[in-house]
């Protein structure tokens, strides 16, 4: 070989490099027809920043991250939706859905002339089709959690030979009735707020989801926007749906969801590269932003809590006294104060605060019940476990846990050793564990930490079929609650079958089994009388606080930061920015 050959290699490398620019677009990107994007004159685009990449599954069936669901919300409509005040509004309907007198069916009246973005009609058949897809035996998306099992004929379609879901009846093109197999307090919410899909997008037959499964990126909805472009690393861009009837109600012509680097959030917002930064909890960003005149913010309760869960089935934590003592011995107020400390912030934001200690483990945004959780209202009999080391010691003492020679308590020869199944890279735990290690030691508890990755933790505590749960005593998790109903708590606290041989509800990771609690939860869910439901749930809440299966560590406020050029953006706990674009203007 000589230098000429070497030149050839270098040259070809260079050439390869330069041609690469042309064809190296990431996944599914860049259709460069600029035909319909020339509308920029009528307003600036809304550019939303996120540090999390979109996963690219925007189909309602498979959108599983909150970020992907932003796109789903922009593209798809549901029959009803929550507004920023958490009130249910009509979207595709002409009138409030009518519940039958016996509460066992509900009828939805659709507007006429509704269209999907491809120009095809949206009618009652599409509604039926949407829910039929969810009931398909082959559908295994994350939303297949049994939330629609109350619909008549659901199980027969999913597990049996039925040709259709018999409980969904199309009366005429604008009228659809859902019949219930069991009463459900949540029926209208769950059905009404689900995204409606088109029955002509792909071929479908029972048991064969086909393209619905493999083309989760492709969308066809009826909302104001359509996806123009998606690139995993860059983000998504949406433009106006030309077939949308009330285009004027959505002045924003283009919506861009942009992946930005962590640590640059505030700088990009200040520089105007993005104009909306939703769903923040970080003091370091919110604080400085609140004293910046050109940045506005919305804040609202986040529909979620961070909590410690106790193993109520085996080990020392199966003793309710231990759970109570540990709850007393955890300085949650101190933790929240330290964890959510502002460096600098406006007084208004400081007053709102970032975090708070929930009084009880319950959805803080649940209708009526949420006020007890956030401490806005008091519920008689509720135990709230303020930090009190002496009370913790006393509780253990009374239950027969005596201090041993090494300072660790024991009972019947069993040491009070608590194994914390922690997850790596969790900033909450990094602060929490050293803290409780010290305090719990003082009451005679030996805390052992076992750090695993998140998936392992979920598989360990979340495998409810596994009878052997002796490997851990407590875990930490943060969870989001869906919707405004308390029924979400049934999933976390309840069981089916008998107390002796229970089948835990899907998220009952603590494996708490208590007949009184379970009965109250079921009474709250399986009724159509709202007042009765609330009463039952109050009972359940008090009972839960006595049993202390979960120790809620913190709740937070979400902050949506936006540049002041964004007007009329009103967001709330169940109405994020992607559901609140009606009337929003970017100047």
């Amino acid at each position, binding site marked *: 070989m000589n230098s000429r050959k070497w030149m050839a290699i270098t040259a070809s490398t260079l050439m390869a490099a330069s041609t690469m620019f042309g064809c190296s677009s990431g996944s599914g990107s860049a259709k460069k027809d600029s035909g319909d994007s020339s509308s920029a004159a009528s307003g600036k685009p809304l550019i939303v920043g996120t540090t999390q990449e979109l996963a690219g599954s925007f189909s309602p069936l498979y959108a599983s991250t909150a970020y992907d669901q932003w796109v789903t919300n922009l593209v798809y409509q549901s029959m009803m939706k929550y507004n920023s005040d958490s009130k249910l509004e009509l979207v595709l309907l002409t009138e409030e859905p009518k519940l039958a007198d016996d509460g066992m069916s509900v009828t939805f009246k659709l507007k006429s002339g509704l269209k999907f973005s491809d120009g095809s009609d949206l009618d009652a058949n599409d509604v039926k089709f949407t829910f039929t897809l969810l009931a398909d035996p082959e559908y295994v998306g994350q939303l297949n959690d049994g939330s629609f099992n109350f619909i008549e004929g659901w199980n027969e379609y999913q597990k049996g030979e039925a040709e259709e879901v018999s409980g969904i009846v199309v009366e005429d093109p604008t009228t659809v009735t859902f019949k219930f197999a069991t009463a459900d307090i949540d029926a209208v919410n769950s059905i009404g707020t689900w995204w409606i899909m088109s029955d002509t997008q792909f071929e479908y037959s029972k048991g064969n989801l086909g393209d619905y499964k493999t083309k989760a990126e492709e969308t066809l909805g009826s909302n104001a926007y359509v996806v123009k472009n998606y690139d995993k690393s860059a983000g998504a861009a949406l433009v106006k749906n030309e077939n949308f009837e009330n285009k004027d109600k959505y002045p924003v012509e283009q919506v861009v969801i942009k992946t930005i680097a962590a640590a640059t959030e505030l700088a990009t917002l200040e520089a105007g590269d993005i104009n909306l930064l939703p769903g923040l909890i970080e003091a370091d960003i919110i604080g400085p932003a609140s004293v910046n005149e050109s940045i506005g913010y919305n804040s609202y309760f986040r529909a979620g809590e961070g909590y410690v869960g106790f193993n109520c089935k085996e080990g020392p934590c199966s003793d309710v006294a231990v759970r109570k003592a540990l709850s007393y011995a955890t300085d949650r107020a101190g933790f929240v104060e330290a964890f959510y400390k502002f460096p600098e912030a406006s007084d208004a934001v400081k007053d709102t605060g970032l975090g708070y200690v929930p009084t009880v483990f319950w959805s803080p945004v649940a209708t009526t019940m949420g006020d007890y959780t956030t401490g806005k209202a008091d519920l008689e009999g509720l135990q709230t476990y303020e930090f009190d080391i002496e009370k913790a010691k006393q509780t253990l003492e009374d239950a027969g846990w005596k201090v041993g020679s090494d300072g660790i308590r024991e009972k019947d020869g069993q040491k009070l050793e608590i194994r914390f199944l922690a997850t790596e890279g969790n900033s909450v735990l*990094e*602060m929490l564990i050293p803290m409780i290690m010290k305090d719990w030691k003082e009451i005679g508890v030996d805390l052992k930490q076992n750090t695993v990755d998140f998936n392992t933790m979920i598989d360990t505590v979340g495998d409810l079929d596994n009878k052997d749960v002796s490997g851990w005593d407590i875990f930490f998790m943060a969870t989001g609650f869906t919707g405004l109903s308390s029924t979400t708590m049934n999933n976390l606290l309840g069981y089916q079958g008998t107390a002796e041989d229970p089948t835990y509800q899907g998220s009952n990771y603590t494996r708490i089994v208590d007949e009184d609690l379970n009965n109250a939860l079921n009474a709250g869910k399986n009724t159509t009388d709202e007042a009765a439901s609330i009463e039952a749930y109050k009972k359940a809440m008090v009972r839960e606080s006595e049993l202390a299966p979960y120790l809620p560590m913190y709740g937070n406020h979400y902050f949506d930061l936006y540049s002041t050029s964004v007007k009329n953006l009103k967001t709330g706990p169940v109405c994020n920015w992607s559901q609140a674009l009606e009337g929003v203007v970017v100047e």
Partner: protein
Amino acid sequence: MEDNKKKPASAPVTEEKIESVGPWTIAWRKFRANRVAMIGLIVFVLIILAVLFVPMMMGINVTDYELNNMNAAPSSAHWLGTDAQGRDCLYRLFLGGRISIMVGLIAAILTVVLGCLVGGIAGYYGGLVDNLLMRFSEIVYSLPFTPMIIAIASVMLWVPQNQKMYTVAFLIGALSWPGLARLVRGQILTLREQEFMQACEALGFSDFSKITKHLLPNVISLVIVNATLQMASAVLTEAGLSFLGMGVMAPTPSWGNLMNLARNGQVFKNYPWQWLPAGIMCLLTVVSINLIGEGLRDAFDPKEIQ
């Protein structure tokens, strides 16, 4: 590597000749004369002393924290500030150094032991044993190092947090030895053809004495140089793994997982004292080890003997 490969032709002969003068003395003299390498050695010794004694002298405990003094900037009380739990960053920096260097050391030792064992046996016995062992090392050699070590590390996540560092060291060692094994084997193969080995054969020395007394001393320089460089790269690998959250885990600090703090945008931007010093220390350590390694290589290189 290219240097090592050239060595077999001349190395043994020359070294045999100067045996009486003492090859170690000569090497040491040459190393001492190499100013750059000496600087490396001094820096490395200083780092070792620091990671050993600074945490001891500070008189604090790894579990100590001050919640009311979080993310504090460097001050006279905390020279490198504090982290998100109000722990002293200087303390964690040097404690982390202990772990990182330890991982490097264990990994290097493991590499050397495995490499010499496999390479030595293969080279000495030859035949079927050689064939099998070399096939085996070819397989390990063909595993893509970084992707594989990340994948395996993610499998090992179940290992308790306090044993994590040994896992990491073991992993690095277990994937790094084939290179050395090949070198040792090549060296031994050439040595076996040398006259002094044939003399040993004729005198009826045992395998054991042949290997320990005559073969090993001839590959030792190769091994030492290799071990040094291996240690440097093991420290780097640990840093990378822990940076990704798959290596040593908090609360045990290591330079890698201290740098991992930078993946939190706020820490990265506002509290650089939590991650930047770890990177600098890591760089200094690896540079100094590499300098020593290169110095040793030159010192052992017979071609450079005046």
